[in-house]
């Protein structure tokens, strides 16, 4: 029980700090002083104290959607272990539940965006739905690759202690980690797929969907975003730490720094994709994940290529 609580606590720490690391990295690379490490938390606290404005076009769905968005992300969050720690919840087949809970949160926000009747938000919703659909195979095959090595379909079992992995699989695991980091970029609405700092609503994806949210609702959406980022960052970190040192003391900092720095560096160094290129970008990721699975399978079978 204590281990489970430690796991949850560490997860919360990871979720809260990734955005801070991203902001610090960006500031450092741009030569700015940048904001405080915890500035994003203060921002959300401020939002939580504010009132709200709702559009007259919207229905009750618009007011419930942020709760579903956060609730689904929160439930998914509780299934993720950090390296050898035990997650709070676990059952056989929970990796599928996590994927579908994330899909549910996506559905809630898409419908909420359609509820406002704004063409900009419709635009964001359509893009989010399409990218979400295309990234699903990458996510599932990435999880299947992990299941292939560990022969199970629950996060707790996959990352449990005693999984001694062959040194041959190093490259495969690193690629799996890479895939999950990219999935984090896509699901989190980050460069190169989406740019959270863009000024033009026409080119936004995630941000434009919450244009009509304010106050507590916006705070909920932002918190859910942290949780989603943390989920993918930790899976990636777990895959890496399965190669080197499978210990939470290694995996937790790695999740914070690895995910934070990679997002920060990518956002500082490259521009966002042209929107029409995003489809190719995401499908390439799915193809890569299928390739990784195949290579992993061949290596597992000791087939020499």
């Amino acid at each position, binding site marked *: 029980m204590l281990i489970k609580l430690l796991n949850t606590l560490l997860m919360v720490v990871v979720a809260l700090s990734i955005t801070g690391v991203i902001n610090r990295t960006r500031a450092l690379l741009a030569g700015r002083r940048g904001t405080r490490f915890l500035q994003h938390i203060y921002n959300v606290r401020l939002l939580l104290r504010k009132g709200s404005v709702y*559009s007259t076009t919207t229905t009750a769905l618009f007011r419930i959607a942020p709760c579903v968005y956060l609730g689904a992300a929160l439930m998914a969050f509780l299934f993720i272990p950090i390296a050898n720690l035990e997650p709070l919840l676990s059952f056989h087949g929970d990796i599928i539940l996590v994927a579908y809970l994330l899909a549910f949160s996506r559905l809630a926000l898409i419908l909420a*965006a359609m509820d406002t009747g704004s063409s900009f938000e*419709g635009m964001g919703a359509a893009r989010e739905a399409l990218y979400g659909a295309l990234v*699903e195979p990458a996510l599932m095959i990435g999880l299947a690759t992990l299941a292939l090595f560990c022969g199970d379909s629950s996060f707790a079992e996959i990352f449990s202690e005693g999984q001694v992995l062959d040194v041959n699989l190093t490259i495969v695991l690193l690629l799996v980690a890479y895939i999950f980091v990219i999935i984090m970029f896509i699901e989190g609405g980050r460069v190169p797929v989406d740019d959270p700092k863009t000024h033009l609503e026409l080119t936004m994806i995630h941000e434009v969907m919450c244009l009509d949210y304010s106050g507590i609702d916006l705070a909920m959406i932002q918190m859910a975003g942290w949780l989603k980022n943390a989920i993918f960052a930790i899976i990636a970190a777990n895959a890496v730490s399965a190669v080197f040192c499978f210990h939470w003391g290694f995996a937790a900092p790695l999740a914070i720094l690895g995910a934070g720095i990679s997002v920060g560096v990518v956002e500082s160094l490259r521009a966002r994709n042209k929107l029409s290129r995003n489809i190719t970008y995401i499908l390439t990721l799915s193809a890569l994940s*299928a390739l990784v699975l195949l290579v992993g399978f061949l290596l597992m079978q000791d087939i020499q290529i």
Partner: protein
Amino acid sequence: MYLYSLLAAMLVIFLIFLVPKRLKVWVATGVVSLVAVAAIAVAVMAFCDMKLDAVEFTTTLFGAESFAIDKLTALMLVIISVASVATVLYSRGYVAGYLERFSSAHISIHYTALVTLVVSMMLVVMSSGGFSFLFSWELMTIASFILILFEAERQDVRRAALNYLVMMHIGFIFLVAGFVLLYNVTGSANFEAIQDYFHLEAPLPLFVILFIGFGMKAGLFPMHIWLPEAHPAAPSHVSAIMSGVMIKTGVYGIIRLMQAVEDGSLLYSVGLIILISGAVTGLWGVILAAMQNDIKRMLAYSSIENVGVILIGLGIAAVGHAAGSPIVGMCGMCGALLHMVNHSLFKTMLFFSAGNIYSKMHTTAMNEMGGLAKHMPITAIMMLFATVAICALPPLNGFVSELLIYIGMFNGVGSGHEVLYSVTGIIALSLIGGFVVLAFTKLYGVVFLGSPRSHHVAECTEVDNQRIVAMAIPAAFILMIGLMPQFVIHPIALVAEAVTGTDPTLASIHFGSSLETLSYIGIAFVAVVALLYVLKRRAQRKRVVTEGPTWGCGFTALNTRMQYTGESFSEGLESIGRPLMKDTVDGRAVDKGEIFPAPHRYRIKHSDKVDSLLGRWWVQMMHRINEYVMRLRTGRVNNYITFALVFLVVVLVLTLFGVL
């Protein structure tokens, strides 16, 4: 005993013709409810392993035939009963709008066909003899044909119905050929004889012939093209029962075929055929579903996609058994069977919702709607519920069946035996899962949310209570399966045992505890969302909450026509979906160079490429044959006498050489 009650029902339905117009629906409701209650009672008896004697009788038409009820039949009976009771309840409100226009005989024929459809579907799943099966199958086709023809004064309805009838008979020819072949080789046309046939002769040809025959009803690619034509033409309750239940009889036939295949290399090839056709059907269906701008066409394509999902499950089950891992087989089979049940529930609800909209809006074109949730709140809630269920999202029932299929596939990957098959399934199912969310958020968002796109929306009101009750029946089952899957899996595992011969305890050992946990997690999820909402409301009580117009990003002259339409919502998918479709454009889009655009009319319809491919090929061939035949029609008597002479000579020659 039950069989006789069905036959009695067939006799009683002619009462429909005798009663006044408004009471006809009640006669139909009464008959269908009685039959359904009897069916459920029989099904429960079958599940409790009570001995049910097979009814055998000899007719001059078919010879000795028998009707029997095993667990698979029992499951199908439950599916049919629930959906048909909901359908007949729903039909009252829907048909009420037509009572003025249509004659008494018209309404009578409609209800007679509806009851006949229910009874014939029950006969289809009960008959174990091939010929009585074919008879009931044909009865089912004709009954549904009459049902589609309800609004027979519309030309598109007549065309769709005729198209349906032709397609079904092409499938029927395959079935007849298959069963005759079976009869020739084994001397019996029973389903049990298929197994003997597979021992005696090369099994794959018969398998493929019957697979095509059943696949036509189930809507397998490329035989799915009747679905998107027939469903928009049929009244909504008919679409509901056809899509929710009738296409499942095709899947039922495929399961019966699988049952006859014994472990071994044949099971591998069968599994591969089923898996690949499931994956192709599912992906094709879902991409086209996402592109449609007509509610009922979109729902029809979504049915095709769901049949694909069921077949992926069946394929994984077959491959798993062939590879000697009963766990994978069990998961795939349970998932597929449960998905059959699930799809019959949420698809009925979705078609009922579409019917509610059609009866108020008098159209099914999505792009004329918008903001319906404010005028039809209960329909909106019901549709949202069904949307979440069909998107396979937890905690509703669609998730449970897809979870089981996924567990099977992940097990296949994990055990390292059927990795390639399982990965194919995972890729297909995950893509399907993603696109379903796209398709249904488009449907729901464009129809119910936002602001109205035409003035008809303002005139819409909520439908009558009876239709709401009819929708609540499947909703209750959806909730029950979604929140308490551990109780539902037991009978499903029993059916899986009957089909594949695996020990049903395997199911409870392998995923019984998972489903139990899932049930708690589903309840916890609902509780968390509710708690967050309550907390939010409490916090907002102390804050200033105001209302205002939607943020227009600085633009102040917003109007409702600037909203995202269905077409623009799926625009991004078009680059992927283009090879599958043929677009027909009516009018012209605004050109990039037009700085001050004049009013434009633009309507686009995405039709299936297979549809035009098959259609064009068929028409061209008929034309060519006609040309040849017309040359013989000279109009001169002497020529015709020559033809007769030639014919006689040919017959004589053939007889001399002993060919005839």
